[in-house]
Protein backbone atom coordinates (compact mmCIF):
# COMPACT_ATOMS: atom_id res chain seq x y z
CA UNK A 1 0.00 0.00 0.00
CA UNK A 2 2.84 2.34 0.88
CA UNK A 3 4.42 1.46 -2.44
CA UNK A 4 1.24 2.32 -4.27
CA UNK A 5 1.23 5.70 -2.55
CA UNK A 6 4.82 6.36 -3.52
CA UNK A 7 4.04 5.44 -7.09
CA UNK A 8 1.02 7.71 -7.18
CA UNK A 9 3.07 10.53 -5.71
CA UNK A 10 5.76 10.02 -8.32
CA UNK A 11 3.10 10.02 -11.00
CA UNK A 12 1.81 13.31 -9.62
CA UNK A 13 5.25 14.85 -9.76
CA UNK A 14 5.77 13.52 -13.26
CA UNK A 15 2.52 15.09 -14.40
CA UNK A 16 3.60 18.35 -12.85
CA UNK A 17 6.94 18.24 -14.61
CA UNK A 18 5.32 17.39 -17.91
CA UNK A 19 3.03 20.36 -17.49
CA UNK A 20 6.03 22.56 -16.74
CA UNK A 21 7.71 21.25 -19.87
CA UNK A 22 4.65 21.77 -22.03
CA UNK A 23 3.88 25.35 -21.05
CA UNK A 24 7.03 26.93 -22.51
CA UNK A 25 7.27 24.41 -25.36
CA UNK A 26 3.76 25.26 -26.50
CA UNK A 27 4.77 28.89 -26.44
CA UNK A 28 2.36 29.92 -23.70
CA UNK A 29 5.23 31.81 -22.13
CA UNK A 30 8.71 32.37 -23.40
CA UNK A 31 11.22 29.73 -22.40
CA UNK A 32 13.59 32.57 -21.54
CA UNK A 33 11.51 33.54 -18.55
CA UNK A 34 9.96 30.18 -17.78
CA UNK A 35 12.54 27.58 -18.72
CA UNK A 36 11.31 24.01 -19.15
CA UNK A 37 12.34 21.48 -16.48
CA UNK A 38 14.91 19.95 -18.78
CA UNK A 39 16.81 23.23 -18.88
CA UNK A 40 16.35 23.75 -15.17
CA UNK A 41 17.81 20.31 -14.60
CA UNK A 42 20.97 21.39 -16.41
CA UNK A 43 21.33 24.45 -14.20
CA UNK A 44 20.59 22.31 -11.18
CA UNK A 45 23.45 20.06 -12.18
CA UNK A 46 25.76 23.10 -12.24
CA UNK A 47 24.64 24.10 -8.79
CA UNK A 48 25.02 20.64 -7.30
CA UNK A 49 28.61 20.59 -8.44
CA UNK A 50 29.33 23.87 -6.71
CA UNK A 51 30.68 23.95 -3.18
CA UNK A 52 29.07 27.33 -2.54
CA UNK A 53 25.70 25.76 -3.12
CA UNK A 54 26.22 23.15 -0.45
CA UNK A 55 27.43 25.60 2.12
CA UNK A 56 24.45 27.82 1.31
CA UNK A 57 22.16 24.84 1.73
CA UNK A 58 23.71 24.13 5.09
CA UNK A 59 23.24 27.72 6.19
CA UNK A 60 19.61 27.72 5.15
CA UNK A 61 18.93 24.43 6.87
CA UNK A 62 20.61 25.64 10.04
CA UNK A 63 18.37 28.68 10.14
CA UNK A 64 15.37 26.55 9.36
CA UNK A 65 15.99 23.84 11.93
CA UNK A 66 16.79 26.27 14.71
CA UNK A 67 13.95 28.60 13.85
CA UNK A 68 11.39 25.85 13.53
CA UNK A 69 12.55 24.22 16.73
CA UNK A 70 12.32 27.41 18.72
CA UNK A 71 9.00 28.38 17.17
CA UNK A 72 7.40 24.97 17.68
CA UNK A 73 8.62 24.63 21.21
CA UNK A 74 7.52 28.11 22.15
CA UNK A 75 4.22 27.78 20.29
CA UNK A 76 3.29 24.53 21.98
CA UNK A 77 4.37 25.73 25.39
CA UNK A 78 2.55 29.04 25.15
CA UNK A 79 -0.52 27.37 23.66
CA UNK A 80 -0.82 24.89 26.49
CA UNK A 81 -0.07 27.50 29.10
CA UNK A 82 -2.64 29.87 27.72
CA UNK A 83 -5.37 27.24 27.74
CA UNK A 84 -4.51 25.85 31.13
CA UNK A 85 -4.70 29.30 32.70
CA UNK A 86 -7.98 30.79 31.44
CA UNK A 87 -6.97 34.20 32.71
CA UNK A 88 -4.01 34.23 30.35
CA UNK A 89 -6.23 33.36 27.44
CA UNK A 90 -8.54 36.28 28.05
CA UNK A 91 -5.73 38.70 28.61
CA UNK A 92 -3.59 37.73 25.65
CA UNK A 93 -6.12 37.07 22.92
CA UNK A 94 -6.35 40.64 21.65
CA UNK A 95 -2.58 41.07 21.70
CA UNK A 96 -2.09 37.83 19.83
CA UNK A 97 -4.53 38.90 17.17
CA UNK A 98 -2.77 42.22 16.90
CA UNK A 99 0.74 40.85 16.59
CA UNK A 100 -0.05 37.91 14.34
CA UNK A 101 -0.80 39.71 11.08
CA UNK A 102 2.22 41.99 11.31
CA UNK A 103 4.18 40.77 8.33
CA UNK A 104 7.63 39.49 9.06
CA UNK A 105 8.83 41.23 5.92
CA UNK A 106 7.96 44.52 7.57
CA UNK A 107 10.24 43.49 10.41
CA UNK A 108 13.25 43.12 8.15
CA UNK A 109 14.73 46.56 8.87
CA UNK A 110 14.22 45.85 12.54
CA UNK A 111 16.01 42.54 12.29
CA UNK A 112 18.89 44.14 10.43
CA UNK A 113 19.13 46.88 13.01
CA UNK A 114 19.28 44.36 15.81
CA UNK A 115 21.42 41.64 14.35
CA UNK A 116 22.69 42.78 10.97
CA UNK A 117 22.76 40.12 8.33
CA UNK A 118 23.69 37.31 10.62
CA UNK A 119 21.91 34.09 11.36
CA UNK A 120 20.15 35.74 14.28
CA UNK A 121 18.33 38.11 11.94
CA UNK A 122 17.06 35.19 9.95
CA UNK A 123 16.07 33.42 13.14
CA UNK A 124 14.13 36.40 14.39
CA UNK A 125 12.03 36.49 11.24
CA UNK A 126 11.63 32.73 11.01
CA UNK A 127 10.59 32.35 14.61
CA UNK A 128 8.24 35.30 14.49
CA UNK A 129 6.41 33.97 11.46
CA UNK A 130 6.14 30.30 12.33
CA UNK A 131 5.42 30.72 16.04
CA UNK A 132 1.88 31.90 15.32
CA UNK A 133 1.13 28.95 13.12
CA UNK A 134 1.85 26.50 15.88
CA UNK A 135 0.24 28.59 18.59
CA UNK A 136 -3.09 28.97 16.83
CA UNK A 137 -3.25 25.28 15.99
CA UNK A 138 -2.54 24.38 19.59
CA UNK A 139 -5.26 26.71 20.82
CA UNK A 140 -7.81 25.15 18.49
CA UNK A 141 -6.60 21.64 19.20
CA UNK A 142 -6.87 21.91 22.95
CA UNK A 143 -10.37 23.23 22.55
CA UNK A 144 -11.25 19.98 20.80
CA UNK A 145 -10.94 17.86 23.94
CA UNK A 146 -13.93 15.55 24.33
CA UNK A 147 -15.83 16.68 27.43
CA UNK A 148 -16.47 13.10 28.50
CA UNK A 149 -12.77 12.29 28.29
CA UNK A 150 -11.92 15.40 30.25
CA UNK A 151 -14.50 14.59 32.89
CA UNK A 152 -13.14 11.09 33.17
CA UNK A 153 -9.70 12.46 33.77
CA UNK A 154 -10.89 14.93 36.35
CA UNK A 155 -12.98 12.40 38.20
CA UNK A 156 -9.98 10.14 38.57
CA UNK A 157 -8.14 12.96 40.20
CA UNK A 158 -5.72 13.65 37.37
CA UNK A 159 -3.99 16.92 38.12
CA UNK A 160 -3.56 19.77 35.69
CA UNK A 161 -0.27 18.55 34.39
CA UNK A 162 -1.50 14.98 34.00
CA UNK A 163 -4.54 16.19 32.11
CA UNK A 164 -2.38 18.26 29.83
CA UNK A 165 -0.20 15.29 29.19
CA UNK A 166 -2.73 12.52 28.89
CA UNK A 167 -5.84 14.25 27.58
CA UNK A 168 -5.17 17.65 26.06
CA UNK A 169 -1.94 16.81 24.37
CA UNK A 170 -3.14 13.67 22.55
CA UNK A 171 -6.32 15.45 21.46
CA UNK A 172 -4.41 18.45 20.22
CA UNK A 173 -1.72 16.36 18.60
CA UNK A 174 -3.38 16.10 15.16
CA UNK A 175 -3.80 19.87 15.17
CA UNK A 176 -0.24 20.34 16.34
CA UNK A 177 1.05 18.09 13.59
CA UNK A 178 -0.77 20.21 11.05
CA UNK A 179 0.60 23.30 12.75
CA UNK A 180 4.14 22.03 12.59
CA UNK A 181 3.75 21.09 8.96
CA UNK A 182 2.48 24.58 8.26
CA UNK A 183 5.21 26.12 10.32
CA UNK A 184 7.89 24.01 8.66
CA UNK A 185 7.04 25.44 5.29
CA UNK A 186 6.61 28.95 6.60
CA UNK A 187 9.96 28.72 8.32
CA UNK A 188 11.62 27.63 5.12
CA UNK A 189 9.88 30.39 3.21
CA UNK A 190 10.95 32.99 5.71
CA UNK A 191 14.51 31.72 5.98
CA UNK A 192 14.90 32.04 2.25
CA UNK A 193 13.08 35.35 2.03
CA UNK A 194 15.24 36.78 4.77
CA UNK A 195 18.39 35.63 3.05
CA UNK A 196 17.09 37.01 -0.18
CA UNK A 197 16.41 40.46 1.18
CA UNK A 198 18.99 40.86 3.92
CA UNK A 199 21.76 38.96 2.26
CA UNK A 200 22.41 36.55 5.07
CA UNK A 201 24.26 33.57 3.62
CA UNK A 202 22.06 30.78 2.29
CA UNK A 203 19.97 29.66 -0.65
CA UNK A 204 18.07 32.93 -0.58
CA UNK A 205 21.12 35.01 -1.27
CA UNK A 206 22.05 32.68 -4.10
CA UNK A 207 18.59 33.25 -5.53
CA UNK A 208 19.06 36.99 -5.19
CA UNK A 209 22.32 36.80 -7.11
CA UNK A 210 20.76 34.65 -9.80
CA UNK A 211 17.84 37.06 -10.07
CA UNK A 212 19.93 40.17 -10.41
CA UNK A 213 22.20 38.36 -12.85
CA UNK A 214 19.35 37.41 -15.17
CA UNK A 215 20.39 33.78 -14.74
CA UNK A 216 16.83 32.51 -15.08
CA UNK A 217 17.45 28.74 -15.21
CA UNK A 218 19.71 28.97 -12.17
CA UNK A 219 17.06 30.86 -10.31
CA UNK A 220 14.51 28.19 -11.09
CA UNK A 221 16.98 25.49 -10.15
CA UNK A 222 17.38 27.07 -6.73
CA UNK A 223 13.61 27.43 -6.37
CA UNK A 224 13.32 23.77 -7.22
CA UNK A 225 15.72 22.99 -4.45
CA UNK A 226 13.56 24.83 -1.95
CA UNK A 227 10.54 22.94 -3.22
CA UNK A 228 12.31 19.64 -2.86
CA UNK A 229 13.32 20.60 0.66
CA UNK A 230 9.65 21.21 1.41
CA UNK A 231 8.80 17.84 -0.04
CA UNK A 232 11.34 16.05 2.11
CA UNK A 233 10.20 17.89 5.18
CA UNK A 234 6.66 16.76 4.55
CA UNK A 235 7.75 13.17 4.09
CA UNK A 236 9.41 13.34 7.46
CA UNK A 237 6.35 14.91 9.05
CA UNK A 238 4.13 12.21 7.60
CA UNK A 239 6.36 9.46 8.93
CA UNK A 240 6.29 10.98 12.40
CA UNK A 241 2.54 11.35 12.14
CA UNK A 242 2.00 7.74 11.20
CA UNK A 243 3.79 6.70 14.34
CA UNK A 244 2.42 9.30 16.70
CA UNK A 245 -1.17 9.17 15.52
CA UNK A 246 -1.62 5.45 14.94
CA UNK A 247 -4.65 5.59 17.21
CA UNK A 248 -6.26 8.51 15.47
CA UNK A 249 -9.30 8.22 13.27
CA UNK A 250 -7.49 9.64 10.27
CA UNK A 251 -4.65 7.14 10.36
CA UNK A 252 -6.73 4.30 11.78
CA UNK A 253 -9.25 4.40 8.97
CA UNK A 254 -6.47 3.80 6.50
CA UNK A 255 -5.02 0.80 8.22
CA UNK A 256 -8.39 -0.94 8.31
CA UNK A 257 -9.30 -0.40 4.70
Amino acid sequence: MRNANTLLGAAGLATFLALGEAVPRLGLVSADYFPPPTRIAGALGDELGDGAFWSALRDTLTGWVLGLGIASGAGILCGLLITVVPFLRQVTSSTIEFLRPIPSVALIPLAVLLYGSELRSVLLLVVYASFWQVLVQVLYGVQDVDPVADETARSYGLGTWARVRHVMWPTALPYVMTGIRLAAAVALVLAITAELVIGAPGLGSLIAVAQSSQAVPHMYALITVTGVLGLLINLGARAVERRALAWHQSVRGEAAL
Partner: protein
Amino acid sequence: MLDIRGLRKTYQGSGRQVEAVRDLTFTVKAGELVCLVGPSGCGKTTLLKCMGGLLDPTSGEVLLDGVPVTGPPPGMAIVFQEYGRSLFPWMRVAENVELPLKEKGLPKAKRRRLVTDALRSVGLPDAADAYPWQLSGGMQQRVAIARALAYEPQVLLMDEPFAAVDAQTRADLEDLVRVLWQERGITVLFVTHDIDEAVYLGERVVVLSASPTVVQDELYIDLPDERDQLHTRVSPRFTELRTHVYEQIQAAKRAARADTSTLSAAADGDGRPAG
Protein backbone atom coordinates in the same frame (compact mmCIF):
# COMPACT_ATOMS: atom_id res chain seq x y z
CA MET B 1 -21.35 10.12 54.07
CA LEU B 2 -22.90 11.52 50.86
CA ASP B 3 -25.58 14.11 51.54
CA ILE B 4 -27.60 15.51 48.68
CA ARG B 5 -29.51 18.56 49.90
CA GLY B 6 -32.12 20.38 47.88
CA LEU B 7 -30.16 19.77 44.70
CA ARG B 8 -31.43 21.66 41.67
CA LYS B 9 -29.90 21.81 38.22
CA THR B 10 -31.12 23.84 35.28
CA TYR B 11 -29.29 23.54 31.96
CA GLN B 12 -29.11 26.63 29.86
CA GLY B 13 -27.73 27.39 26.48
CA SER B 14 -28.36 27.26 22.74
CA GLY B 15 -31.84 28.63 23.23
CA ARG B 16 -32.98 25.81 25.47
CA GLN B 17 -33.55 25.84 29.17
CA VAL B 18 -34.17 22.53 30.90
CA GLU B 19 -34.87 22.09 34.54
CA ALA B 20 -33.31 18.66 34.76
CA VAL B 21 -33.39 18.22 38.52
CA ARG B 22 -35.84 20.17 40.64
CA ASP B 23 -35.28 19.19 44.24
CA LEU B 24 -33.38 16.15 45.38
CA THR B 25 -32.62 15.34 48.98
CA PHE B 26 -31.31 12.01 50.14
CA THR B 27 -28.38 10.47 51.92
CA VAL B 28 -26.03 7.61 51.19
CA LYS B 29 -24.38 6.25 54.28
CA ALA B 30 -20.78 5.13 54.33
CA GLY B 31 -20.45 1.57 53.10
CA GLU B 32 -23.93 1.50 51.63
CA LEU B 33 -24.88 0.16 48.20
CA VAL B 34 -27.70 2.30 46.83
CA CYS B 35 -29.37 1.75 43.47
CA LEU B 36 -30.92 4.64 41.62
CA VAL B 37 -33.69 4.08 39.11
CA GLY B 38 -35.83 6.52 37.23
CA PRO B 39 -37.27 7.25 33.82
CA SER B 40 -34.97 8.05 30.93
CA GLY B 41 -33.95 11.70 30.96
CA CYS B 42 -34.92 12.26 34.57
CA GLY B 43 -31.52 13.49 35.61
CA LYS B 44 -29.64 10.51 36.97
CA THR B 45 -26.49 11.29 35.05
CA THR B 46 -26.80 14.92 36.03
CA LEU B 47 -27.07 13.92 39.66
CA LEU B 48 -24.05 11.66 39.44
CA LYS B 49 -21.97 14.40 37.85
CA CYS B 50 -22.95 16.80 40.59
CA MET B 51 -21.94 14.24 43.19
CA GLY B 52 -18.66 13.67 41.43
CA GLY B 53 -17.91 17.39 41.52
CA LEU B 54 -17.95 17.61 37.73
CA LEU B 55 -20.97 19.85 37.48
CA ASP B 56 -21.98 22.75 39.67
CA PRO B 57 -25.57 22.51 40.85
CA THR B 58 -27.81 25.50 40.19
CA SER B 59 -28.76 25.44 43.85
CA GLY B 60 -28.53 23.05 46.76
CA GLU B 61 -25.42 21.16 47.65
CA VAL B 62 -23.66 17.84 47.82
CA LEU B 63 -21.76 17.04 50.99
CA LEU B 64 -19.14 14.33 51.27
CA ASP B 65 -18.41 13.54 54.91
CA GLY B 66 -19.94 16.90 55.73
CA VAL B 67 -17.69 18.85 53.35
CA PRO B 68 -19.27 20.45 50.27
CA VAL B 69 -18.09 18.90 47.04
CA THR B 70 -16.61 21.55 44.75
CA GLY B 71 -14.33 19.45 42.59
CA PRO B 72 -13.75 15.76 42.03
CA PRO B 73 -13.03 14.40 45.52
CA PRO B 74 -10.14 11.97 45.93
CA GLY B 75 -10.93 8.31 46.31
CA MET B 76 -14.03 8.48 44.13
CA ALA B 77 -14.36 6.63 40.86
CA ILE B 78 -17.03 7.11 38.23
CA VAL B 79 -18.07 4.74 35.47
CA PHE B 80 -19.61 6.94 32.81
CA GLN B 81 -22.70 6.10 30.83
CA GLU B 82 -20.86 7.16 27.68
CA TYR B 83 -18.23 4.51 28.23
CA GLY B 84 -16.96 4.69 24.64
CA ARG B 85 -16.05 8.33 24.90
CA SER B 86 -14.63 8.03 28.38
CA LEU B 87 -11.82 5.75 27.20
CA PHE B 88 -8.86 7.51 25.68
CA PRO B 89 -8.46 6.28 22.10
CA TRP B 90 -4.75 7.05 22.10
CA MET B 91 -4.01 4.62 24.90
CA ARG B 92 -4.17 0.88 24.86
CA VAL B 93 -6.58 -0.83 27.21
CA ALA B 94 -3.96 -1.52 29.86
CA GLU B 95 -2.72 2.04 29.70
CA ASN B 96 -6.23 3.35 30.08
CA VAL B 97 -6.67 1.31 33.23
CA GLU B 98 -3.25 2.16 34.53
CA LEU B 99 -3.35 5.92 34.02
CA PRO B 100 -5.29 6.86 37.21
CA LEU B 101 -3.05 4.55 39.21
CA LYS B 102 0.00 6.30 37.88
CA GLU B 103 -1.44 9.61 38.89
CA LYS B 104 -2.08 8.17 42.30
CA GLY B 105 1.64 7.51 42.50
CA LEU B 106 1.51 3.74 42.93
CA PRO B 107 4.71 1.80 42.27
CA LYS B 108 4.98 0.07 38.97
CA ALA B 109 4.74 -3.49 40.17
CA LYS B 110 1.61 -2.81 42.12
CA ARG B 111 0.05 -0.96 39.20
CA ARG B 112 0.72 -3.83 36.92
CA ARG B 113 -0.85 -6.29 39.30
CA LEU B 114 -3.91 -4.14 39.77
CA VAL B 115 -4.37 -3.73 36.03
CA THR B 116 -4.04 -7.42 35.30
CA ASP B 117 -6.39 -8.36 38.09
CA ALA B 118 -8.99 -5.80 37.12
CA LEU B 119 -8.96 -6.82 33.48
CA ARG B 120 -9.19 -10.46 34.44
CA SER B 121 -12.08 -9.81 36.77
CA VAL B 122 -14.15 -8.23 33.99
CA GLY B 123 -13.30 -11.08 31.64
CA LEU B 124 -10.84 -9.27 29.40
CA PRO B 125 -7.47 -10.77 30.24
CA ASP B 126 -6.46 -10.79 26.59
CA ALA B 127 -7.47 -7.29 25.62
CA ALA B 128 -4.70 -5.43 27.46
CA ASP B 129 -2.81 -4.57 24.32
CA ALA B 130 -5.76 -3.58 22.15
CA TYR B 131 -6.89 -0.02 21.57
CA PRO B 132 -10.38 0.70 22.91
CA TRP B 133 -11.77 1.22 19.42
CA GLN B 134 -10.74 -2.28 18.50
CA LEU B 135 -13.14 -3.67 21.07
CA SER B 136 -16.84 -4.35 20.94
CA GLY B 137 -19.23 -2.09 22.85
CA GLY B 138 -19.60 -4.46 25.75
CA MET B 139 -15.86 -4.93 25.99
CA GLN B 140 -15.30 -1.19 26.08
CA GLN B 141 -17.79 -0.87 28.85
CA ARG B 142 -15.99 -3.55 30.80
CA VAL B 143 -12.69 -1.74 30.35
CA ALA B 144 -14.27 1.35 31.88
CA ILE B 145 -15.44 -0.80 34.80
CA ALA B 146 -12.00 -2.34 35.17
CA ARG B 147 -10.48 1.12 35.33
CA ALA B 148 -12.78 2.06 38.19
CA LEU B 149 -12.12 -1.18 40.05
CA ALA B 150 -8.36 -0.97 39.73
CA TYR B 151 -8.51 2.53 41.17
CA GLU B 152 -9.67 1.04 44.48
CA PRO B 153 -12.01 3.88 45.32
CA GLN B 154 -13.81 4.51 48.60
CA VAL B 155 -16.84 5.75 46.71
CA LEU B 156 -17.92 4.22 43.43
CA LEU B 157 -20.47 5.91 41.19
CA MET B 158 -21.68 3.78 38.30
CA ASP B 159 -23.94 5.06 35.53
CA GLU B 160 -25.68 2.14 33.84
CA PRO B 161 -22.43 0.24 33.81
CA PHE B 162 -23.76 -3.07 32.51
CA ALA B 163 -26.01 -1.76 29.74
CA ALA B 164 -23.96 -3.18 26.92
CA VAL B 165 -23.00 -6.62 28.18
CA ASP B 166 -24.79 -9.91 27.77
CA ALA B 167 -26.98 -11.47 30.42
CA GLN B 168 -24.41 -13.93 31.69
CA THR B 169 -21.61 -11.42 31.92
CA ARG B 170 -23.98 -9.02 33.54
CA ALA B 171 -24.86 -11.52 36.24
CA ASP B 172 -21.16 -12.18 36.84
CA LEU B 173 -20.39 -8.48 37.07
CA GLU B 174 -23.27 -7.95 39.45
CA ASP B 175 -21.85 -10.56 41.74
CA LEU B 176 -18.42 -9.02 41.35
CA VAL B 177 -19.70 -5.65 42.50
CA ARG B 178 -21.40 -7.14 45.51
CA VAL B 179 -18.30 -9.11 46.48
CA LEU B 180 -16.05 -6.07 46.20
CA TRP B 181 -18.51 -3.96 48.12
CA GLN B 182 -18.74 -6.46 50.92
CA GLU B 183 -15.01 -7.07 51.11
CA ARG B 184 -13.75 -3.55 50.79
CA GLY B 185 -16.57 -1.80 52.58
CA ILE B 186 -16.82 0.81 49.84
CA THR B 187 -19.81 3.04 49.20
CA VAL B 188 -21.55 2.37 45.89
CA LEU B 189 -24.15 4.40 44.03
CA PHE B 190 -25.47 2.43 41.12
CA VAL B 191 -27.70 3.81 38.36
CA THR B 192 -29.58 1.21 36.37
CA HIS B 193 -32.65 0.75 34.25
CA ASP B 194 -33.00 -2.89 35.09
CA ILE B 195 -35.36 -3.16 38.02
CA ASP B 196 -34.33 -6.72 38.82
CA GLU B 197 -30.76 -5.61 38.88
CA ALA B 198 -31.55 -2.73 41.21
CA VAL B 199 -33.36 -5.00 43.64
CA TYR B 200 -30.81 -7.78 43.40
CA LEU B 201 -27.86 -5.48 43.98
CA GLY B 202 -28.98 -2.78 46.34
CA GLU B 203 -29.40 -2.41 50.02
CA ARG B 204 -31.68 0.41 49.14
CA VAL B 205 -33.37 1.55 45.95
CA VAL B 206 -34.10 5.22 45.32
CA VAL B 207 -36.76 5.85 42.69
CA LEU B 208 -36.68 9.21 40.97
CA SER B 209 -39.66 10.87 39.35
CA ALA B 210 -39.70 12.03 35.76
CA SER B 211 -38.13 15.39 35.04
CA PRO B 212 -38.31 17.92 36.81
CA THR B 213 -37.01 15.39 39.24
CA VAL B 214 -37.74 14.74 42.88
CA VAL B 215 -37.36 11.56 44.93
CA GLN B 216 -40.45 9.48 44.19
CA ASP B 217 -39.77 6.68 46.61
CA GLU B 218 -37.06 5.09 48.73
CA LEU B 219 -37.15 1.41 49.41
CA TYR B 220 -35.10 -0.68 51.80
CA ILE B 221 -34.27 -4.06 50.26
CA ASP B 222 -34.68 -6.58 53.05
CA LEU B 223 -33.22 -9.53 51.22
CA PRO B 224 -30.49 -11.51 52.95
CA ASP B 225 -26.96 -10.21 52.51
CA GLU B 226 -25.80 -13.38 50.85
CA ARG B 227 -27.49 -13.26 47.47
CA ASP B 228 -27.03 -15.42 44.45
CA GLN B 229 -28.38 -15.29 40.98
CA LEU B 230 -30.25 -18.57 41.11
CA HIS B 231 -32.06 -18.37 44.41
CA THR B 232 -32.44 -14.71 45.22
CA ARG B 233 -34.17 -13.88 41.98
CA VAL B 234 -36.87 -16.46 42.44
CA SER B 235 -37.61 -15.70 46.07
CA PRO B 236 -41.13 -14.33 46.67
CA ARG B 237 -39.81 -11.29 48.51
CA PHE B 238 -37.71 -10.41 45.48
CA THR B 239 -40.76 -10.53 43.27
CA GLU B 240 -42.68 -8.35 45.66
CA LEU B 241 -39.95 -5.78 45.80
CA ARG B 242 -39.45 -5.62 42.07
CA THR B 243 -43.17 -5.25 41.52
CA HIS B 244 -43.19 -2.40 43.97
CA VAL B 245 -40.34 -0.61 42.23
CA TYR B 246 -41.96 -1.20 38.86
CA GLU B 247 -45.16 0.37 40.07
CA GLN B 248 -43.35 3.33 41.47
CA ILE B 249 -41.58 3.98 38.18
CA GLN B 250 -44.85 3.72 36.35
CA ALA B 251 -46.37 6.13 38.80
CA ALA B 252 -43.47 8.47 38.24
CA LYS B 253 -43.95 8.34 34.51
CA ARG B 254 -47.69 8.63 34.74
CA ALA B 255 -47.37 11.87 36.65
CA ALA B 256 -45.18 13.27 33.92
CA ARG B 257 -47.26 11.81 31.16
CA ALA B 258 -50.38 13.57 32.31
CA ASP B 259 -49.24 16.77 30.69
CA THR B 260 -47.16 15.72 27.71
CA SER B 261 -48.08 13.57 24.79
CA THR B 262 -47.57 9.95 25.50
CA LEU B 263 -45.41 7.05 24.65
CA SER B 264 -47.89 4.32 25.40
CA ALA B 265 -50.31 5.98 23.05
CA ALA B 266 -47.78 5.25 20.36
CA ALA B 267 -47.60 1.65 21.37
CA ASP B 268 -51.38 1.48 21.32
CA GLY B 269 -51.22 2.30 17.71
CA ASP B 270 -52.26 5.90 17.23
CA GLY B 271 -49.02 7.80 17.65
CA ARG B 272 -46.71 5.85 15.44
CA PRO B 273 -45.08 7.22 12.36
CA ALA B 274 -47.40 7.35 9.42
CA GLY B 275 -46.37 4.94 6.78
